[in-house]
């Protein structure tokens, strides 16, 4: 048996083979390009979503502060001046630096400190606030305005609702591989529970977008104590 391939037939096979390869190549390229595009769009979407979620300072806080300022100007203008400086630092940070992807940990700490100080002068009742910061990693950078959400909640659901003996205990430790931030506060247990607010929801979503698989958030309630802890892995 002699197996003869006719020249013409051979050419036809070759041709169809080449066509298939060509189609596969073009097809793969097209798919890769599409996938890239989709990915880019996804990134873009995540970015806009992040921008959108980035919290601005609570407007009521600002207006109440402006009211305090208004009253202070007459009584104690020196103190009022100090307040203006703190308030503008906070506004600047939240409006401008807050838009950056990353900020230095020192800037974040400064912002939290200003927030605490301003709160301390608001009320006549005594509030016990401690803020322990331990920074071992000076060059650490983080996504801005994440921690403030937990602190804001401590004031909103704790301090503001208590008639007396309110406390807030804040701890921050910044190491080479991780940042740990925790807030512990007491609250009025007799008051009806409020649903988790938009603040926490936003925080969770932002963590998912900025630190996927690299964050740990725990919220813990016990009688009249609330503890929130956020750990961000830097590696």
């Amino acid at each position, binding site marked *: 048996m002699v197996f003869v391939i006719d020249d013409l037939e051979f050419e036809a096979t070759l041709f169809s083979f080449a066509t298939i390869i060509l189609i596969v190549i073009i097809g793969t390229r097209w798919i890769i390009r599409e996938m890239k595009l989709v990915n880019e769009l996804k990134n873009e979407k995540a970015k806009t979503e992040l921008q959108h979620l980035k919290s601005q300072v609570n*407007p*009521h806080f600002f*207006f*109440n502060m*402006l*009211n*305090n*300022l*208004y*009253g*202070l100007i*007459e*009584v104690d203008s020196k103190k009022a001046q100090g307040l203006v400086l703190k308030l503008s630092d906070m506004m600047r940070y939240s409006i401008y630096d807050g838009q950056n992807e990353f900020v230095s940990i020192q800037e974040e700490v400064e912002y939290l400190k200003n927030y605490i100080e301003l709160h301390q002068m*608001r*009320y*006549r*009742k005594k509030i016990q606030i401690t803020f322990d910061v331990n920074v071992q990693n000076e060059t650490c950078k983080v996504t801005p305005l994440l921690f403030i959400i937990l602190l804001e909640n401590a004031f909103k659901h704790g301090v*503001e*609702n*208590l*008639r007396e003996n309110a406390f807030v205990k804040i701890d921050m430790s910044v190491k080479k591989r991780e940042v740990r931030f925790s807030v512990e506060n007491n609250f*009025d247990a007799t*008051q009806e529970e409020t649903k988790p607010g938009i603040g926490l929801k936003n925080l969770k979503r932002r963590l998912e977008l900025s630190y996927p698989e690299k964050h740990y958030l725990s919220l813990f309630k016990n009688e009249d104590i609330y503890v929130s802890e956020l750990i961000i892995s830097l590696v």
Partner: protein
Amino acid sequence: MIKYIIVDDEYIAHDIIKGYCDLLPNMELQKNCYDAIEALEYLNQHTVDLIFLDLNMPKLKGFEFLKTLSSPPKVIVTTAYKEFALEGYELNISDYLLKPFSFERFLKAINKVVGTKPTTKSTLVNEVDNAVKSIFLRSNKKYVQVSINDILYAEAAGNYTKVITISDTITIREKISDLLEVLPKENFLQVHKSFAIAVKHIQSIEGNRIFIQEHIVPIGKMYKANVNELLK
């Protein structure tokens, strides 16, 4: 005398309100309350004419507090929250001040309170009611208490308005339309772009002129119909 309390958890807010009230005659602070519980305790023993009420406070929020009062006095809400105004008016508050507020704005709120005082049930007896109604008018740096009964007419003069009373002429830095807002509608009538008169002080009307005591007030073309209503 208007007896008032301040309910606010921020102490500087107290200073502001008290400072404003001290500029006015007849305002007497009874107590500073730093939350609504404190206010409730006080009101259980005492009565007041007016409460300055913040909304966001420990334990009992402002409106919840208000709902617990069976016969609440006049209430002026002072808050940084813009979004609760509607709810406030449903609870019959006199005014809603957004922090920070100016003295002028504050005065408007006070005038709404004194303009409707006292809150007797017999509001039908308008005449009796009017006998005690008065408002504060700001003239230069002074605040003059004027009985609404004594006002003859008001005349617009540029950015100012002249208020002519039986015994006096007071010039205030306010538009005539703003003034008319705080005066009881049923007693005053705009008869000219620049003139509003107290109906009961009219002595006679002749052509396009109204005679009030020794004063003559013109009637504007557009307002002629207003005046004709009176003559029906």
